[in-house]
């Protein structure tokens, strides 16, 4: 080594390289076969072959005098290395230093090494000097690819294989890739045409942490220099743990267990086979579980065909439409509401099942799932059914249900039927079912054309009987397969089985504005196809763990046809009429559970125990006094348990009319506004009557009764017999204005003033009890009549006189309403404003009204002007407000039939007046202790020899702290 010719740094670098290369990078030896002819002999033919291909590529720039060429390694070259290594290990250091030559760096030649190299290489110019850059571990000779085919027994991914430097730009077999200098197919001549060489990613040597970046060698192998390209202070000189920068090898997987084990963690969140999972979770249960009902369990129904299905309530999921089925859970009350869009065509041709009242009650309810299985075991002991009895077997696979959640494929589940007889019978049954349960999955075998559902079961049954007589399977035989159940007609024991509860239905419908409620079996029942279900209310009587005892369903119907255009209705709507009309209707579903013993008694609901719970109705009643025979005064509270009869406030109905009242719920602030229509004539002539009517409407009959001593329950469970649990409802009147009764009947201008239109109920409540579980207690209720009392104008003036498109009657259906309010002339009353007068606004101008000024960026004047042009009546527009105020009624006609709209508003406010819990700390604790009698014996002599000396010391806590601080250790 000519270290004396080299500076320290270079030497160290070379040493670094040597150390670096020695253990693992020995594959970089020049694969000069001629230097080790003995060892290489076995590989010679191959080598020559490979070199032959390699020799074609010497690039134009690397033809140097020394002609040290570098092999761009092929996989096939690797195999021969191992044999060379042992013999070359001595030389490897020298050689590899030369292999790291970097012709761009400052050239520091190593003459002797070069010489050696040259001498070595020059001897073998016929073969080629091969330098490899691959970081091949010597200890694991990599087999040739052809050899790896033989290793079927142990398929191991070889890490080394991926650590080689592939010529990754060589994408075309036997064809020169443009720009790919390492492509063996490219001749030197070819490469002259290249613009440059495509950079090829390297595996290991590309790691920036290595001191030597030897990949550069591949590109520039004409000059020798020592690579000092990594200027980092800390770089990897020797990598004795290549695994740190390489991926470990993974064995090929041969068994599926191993596969599952390997992938267990990785596919944690991946749903494999979702249908399979759903079935496992019970999404598609076809049989009730063998257990008794507990709260929250699915309640099961049994179709007329005898198939089990979980009950459900149609409910909205994504939109307001009925899209899903909410489970009908045991002992859990539920209320669902959703919308149906009924195409008119469909309604008149065939009534959809969801509008048919029988859909919702024509099934049985399973009273207790346990009973089926008991029944089953009983039947196993019994003898087989005589062949004369008509029985039929229905497979539970047909997908008709009120609430089947998933529709199973009939063909797949039919295969589950074990006995051939059931299979055949079920298949024979299928056509019968498929007609009734065609598409929407509702449980009913009700046939429209017949309009006589009572006979349906029998006809159905007889047809079944005919089919099943041929097979006559025994019950025990059938019941072995729980997939199927048996329905027996006539004297069938299962029909009257204990576990089947018939739904007692009651259909209520309108006929000439009368509500008629009839049993479905009533011969007088007269339901047409137009009567559609608008609400269903189930009351389920149960006996706790013993299951359901009775189910009653009240089905309310509404006549859809009345809402269809009159012409279409009267002229017997022809199916050819291509009408796109869609009727929207809401359907309400309600489930209520009651104990079977409560069937005939009213259950009084508390609003909390003891304190109120938010959202529960405020208890409300009035005092009743009674003097008993013994002369004892008795006081009690008369209370109506119906919240709607309690403390209520007026609210707008669907159309903003004061048509509904809403109960006051504890803790829920309310603000309601609505309108009341009073005829103009009444205002003029019968003012006091109007006042009374409005007042009565606003306050309601109870609140308006001044004789009653009204009380509000202080607690959610206030006892009606204990009047002290009730707080009085106080009234405060606006004293600045006279009460209407004392007001003159009519003021001089003919105005009816002082109509009460608003009031406020303020409820003060306080939290009582522990902080952890506070109880709300009402401490005071004040009703304040509004100071704002309207004085309707004597004449129709102001903006309220404009007709507004508010119907007086609520309905869902547009046509009906339109006819209603077109006929009425409504006059709106209100405080003075100069918007405009428009008394004969007889047509609803949708557009003119629809794009009203403010919110659509149009100015206020435009629609008004538009209206002026359209209306024939005289219009006082914005431009002349003074005239408006003073002018006489613009409408020449007597406006007696017009109505004035009175706007009424109510507010209910709840205030928490809880006192904060005691903010100060309690008094510091006092510690009393006595010293022993003789503790200070020499100083204090006990008098009389009795233990009269006692030191009683009181310490405050701070004193104690001081005390302890002073004698913290010493005292102990």
């Amino acid at each position: 080594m000519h270290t004396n010719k080299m500076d320290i740094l270079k030497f160290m670098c070379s040493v670094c390289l040597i150390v670096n290369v020695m253990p693992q990078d020995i594959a970089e030896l020049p694969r000069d076969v001629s230097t080790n002819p003995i060892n290489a002999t076995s590989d010679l033919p191959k080598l020559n072959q490979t070199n032959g291909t390699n020799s074609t590529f010497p690039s134009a720039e690397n033809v140097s005098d020394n002609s040290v060429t570098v092999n761009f390694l092929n996989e096939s070259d690797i195999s021969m290395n191992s044999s060379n290594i042992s013999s070359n290990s001595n030389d490897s250091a020298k050689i590899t230093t030369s292999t790291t030559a970097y012709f761009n760096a400052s050239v520091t030649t190593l003459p002797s090494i070069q010489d050696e190299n040259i001498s070595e290489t020059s001897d073998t110019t016929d073969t080629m000097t091969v330098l490899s850059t691959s970081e091949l571990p010597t200890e694991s000779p990599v087999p040739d690819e052809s050899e790896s085919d033989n290793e079927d027994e142990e398929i191991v991914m070889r890490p080394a294989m991926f650590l080689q430097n592939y010529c990754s730009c060589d994408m075309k077999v036997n064809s020169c890739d443009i720009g790919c200098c390492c492509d063996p197919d490219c001749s030197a001549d070819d490469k002259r045409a290249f613009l440059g060489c495509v950079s090829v990613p390297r595996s290991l040597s590309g790691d920036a942490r290595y001191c030597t970046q030897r990949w550069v060698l591949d590109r520039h192998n004409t000059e020798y220099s020592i690579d000092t390209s990594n200027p980092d202070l800390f770089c990897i000189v020797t990598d004795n743990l290549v695994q740190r920068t390489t991926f470990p090898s993974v064995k090929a997987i041969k068994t599926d267990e191993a596969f599952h084990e390997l992938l267990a963690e990785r596919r944690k969140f991946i749903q494999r086979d979702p249908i399979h999972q759903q079935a496992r979770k019970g999404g598609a249960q076809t049989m009730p579980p063998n257990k008794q009902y507990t709260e929250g369990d699915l309640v099961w129904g049994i179709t007329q065909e005898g198939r089990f299905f979980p009950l459900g309530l149609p409910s909205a999921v994504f939109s307001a439409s009925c899209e899903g089925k909410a489970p009908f859970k045991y002992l859990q009350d539920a209320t669902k509401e959703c919308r149906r869009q009924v195409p008119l065509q469909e309604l008149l041709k065939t009534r959809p099942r969801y509008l048919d009242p029988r859909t919702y009650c024509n099934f049985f309810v399973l009273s207790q799932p346990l009973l089926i299985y008991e029944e089953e075991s009983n039947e196993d002991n019994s003898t087989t059914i005589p062949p004369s009895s008509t029985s039929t077997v229905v497979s539970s696979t047909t997908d008709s249900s009120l609430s089947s959640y998933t529709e199973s494929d009939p063909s797949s589940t039919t295969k589950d039927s074990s006995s051939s007889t059931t299979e055949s019978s079920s298949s024979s049954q299928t056509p019968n079912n498929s007609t009734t349960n065609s598409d929407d999955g509702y449980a009913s075998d009700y046939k429209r054309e017949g309009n006589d559902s009572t006979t349906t079961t029998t006809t159905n049954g007889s047809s079944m009987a005919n089919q099943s007589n041929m097979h006559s399977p025994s019950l025990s035989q059938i019941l072995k397969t729980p997939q199927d159940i048996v329905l027996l007609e006539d004297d069938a024991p299962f029909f009257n089985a204990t576990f089947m509860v018939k739904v007692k239905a009651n259909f209520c419908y309108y006929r000439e504005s009368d509500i008629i409620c009839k049993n479905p079996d009533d011969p007088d029942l007269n339901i047409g196809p137009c009567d559609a279900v608008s609400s269903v209310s189930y009351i389920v009587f149960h006996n706790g763990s013993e299951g359901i005892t009775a189910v009653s369903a009240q089905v309310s119907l509404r006549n859809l046809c009345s809402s269809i255009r009159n012409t279409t209705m009267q002229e017997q709507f022809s199916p050819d009429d291509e009408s796109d009309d869609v009727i929207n209707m809401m359907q309400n579903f309600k489930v209520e559970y009651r104990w079977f013993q409560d069937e005939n008694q009213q259950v009084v609901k508390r609003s909390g125990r003891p304190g109120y719970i938010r959202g529960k109705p405020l208890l409300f009643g009035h005092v009743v006094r009674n003097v008993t025979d013994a002369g004892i005064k008795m006081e009690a509270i008369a209370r109506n348990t119906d919240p709607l009869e309690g403390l209520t406030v007026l609210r707008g109905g669907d159309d903003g009319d004061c048509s509904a009242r809403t109960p006051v719920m504890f803790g829920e602030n309310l603000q309601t506004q609505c309108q009341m229509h009073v005829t103009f004539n009444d205002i003029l002539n019968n003012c006091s009557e109007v006042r009374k009517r409005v007042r009565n409407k606003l306050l309601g009959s109870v609140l308006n009764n001044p004789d009653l001593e009204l009380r509000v329950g202080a607690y959610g469970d206030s006892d009606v017999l204990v009047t002290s649990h009730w707080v009085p409802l106080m009234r405060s009147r606006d004293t600045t204005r006279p009460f209407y009764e004392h007001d003159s009947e009519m003021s001089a201008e003919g105005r009816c003033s002082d109509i009460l239109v608003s009031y406020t109920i303020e409820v003060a409540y306080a939290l009582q009890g522990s902080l952890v579980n506070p109880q709300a207690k009402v401490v005071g209720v004040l009703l304040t009549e509004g100071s704002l009392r309207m004085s309707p104008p004597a004449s129709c003036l102001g903006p309220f006189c404009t007709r507004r498109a508010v119907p007086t009657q609520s309905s869902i259906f547009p046509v009906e309403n339109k006819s209603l309010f077109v006929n009425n002339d409504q006059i709106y009353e209100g405080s003075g404003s100069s918007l405009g007068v428009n008394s004969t606004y007889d047509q609803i101008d949708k557009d003119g009204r629809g794009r009203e000024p403010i919110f659509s960026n149009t100015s206020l004047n435009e629609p008004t002007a538009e209206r002026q042009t359209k209306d024939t009546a005289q219009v006082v527009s914005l431009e002349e407000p003074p005239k408006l105020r003073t002018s006489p009624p613009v409408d020449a006609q007597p406006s007696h039939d017009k109505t004035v709209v009175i706007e009424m508003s109510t507010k209910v406010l709840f205030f928490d007046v809880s006192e904060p819990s005691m903010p100060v700390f309690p008094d510091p604790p006092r510690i009393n202790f006595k010293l022993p009698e003789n503790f200070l014996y020499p100083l204090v002599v006990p008098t009389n020899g009795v233990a009269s000396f006692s030191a009683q010391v009181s310490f405050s806590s701070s004193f104690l702290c001081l005390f302890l601080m002073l004698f913290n250790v010493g005292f102990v």
Partner: protein
Amino acid sequence: MMSFVVYVDNKSVVHRSTLCSRAVFFYLFCFVLSVILPLIITYRSQGLWVEEFRNKEQAEVTYMEQMLVVVHTTSGVIYWTTDPSFRALNPQMLRQPFLKWHEYDSNHDGKRDGLELTLEVPLLPHESVQQVDLVANMEYSLHSHCDISVTGGIAFERSSCAPMSSVKVLGDVILHQRHSMRCSRAHQHNTQYLLQHHAASDDPTLWSPVKILSEYWLRNQTLRLSNEYIMSIIGPTDLFRVELSLKYVEQEHVYVASFWHVMKHAWIQYLSVLVVVVYVLDVVKKWVYSNQIVPTRTHVSHAHLYKRE
């Protein structure tokens, strides 16, 4: 004989020098350096003068029972507001809703934690809702650092091509600060309601949500919805419903630091560097004087002797 250390007594070396001498100069230099150097170091590390003060607090938020709802339907705009004067301005478009709300304090700490509000607007059969704008006033008051009350509001808009039957809004009410808040009374000008100054006006164009929000946006402190989800249920209906579920959350507020806060913070920073500097200079001084780098007259004295002098 073994010997034990039974007591340690210190001797002091007293260095004296005349006024105009290198020793005195060096002494003064060290003194000035020990004062100045911590100042420079803390200042350069941006740690000397703090400009803002951050404090996390759950504000007391109150729904002020003032709101404006504008519902765009296929057959026109309907609106409702709690303000009676504006209700009188456009009675044709007014629609009476049913409003129900409550604020709750779930942990009974005296601060309300949320608001649940339901608004039901009756619709005519031919109306279907395409857009809804809602603006509601809220008061937001802070007490822990100083008493600040910001009156603002929350606003949202939802539109849809398909008719909407209800809109549900979930969100947190937060205070958006463009600048840090000042605690002094002179700067409590944020008592402007979102809807307030429109109330007295006869001009209904002021009630456009666009105008209201444009003015509101100009303010430096505004309330707004954050972490919000606004969802609409599609489908025709005769009762349009808006459900608001708001949470009043704890939030970090930024105040302008008060004078004494700045001084306190600066002193803490200064002192911590000063201790180190004084120690280092002490070492340097000891070395300089004990090695007589600067000439001084020295005499050794016992501590008690020195004290007696």
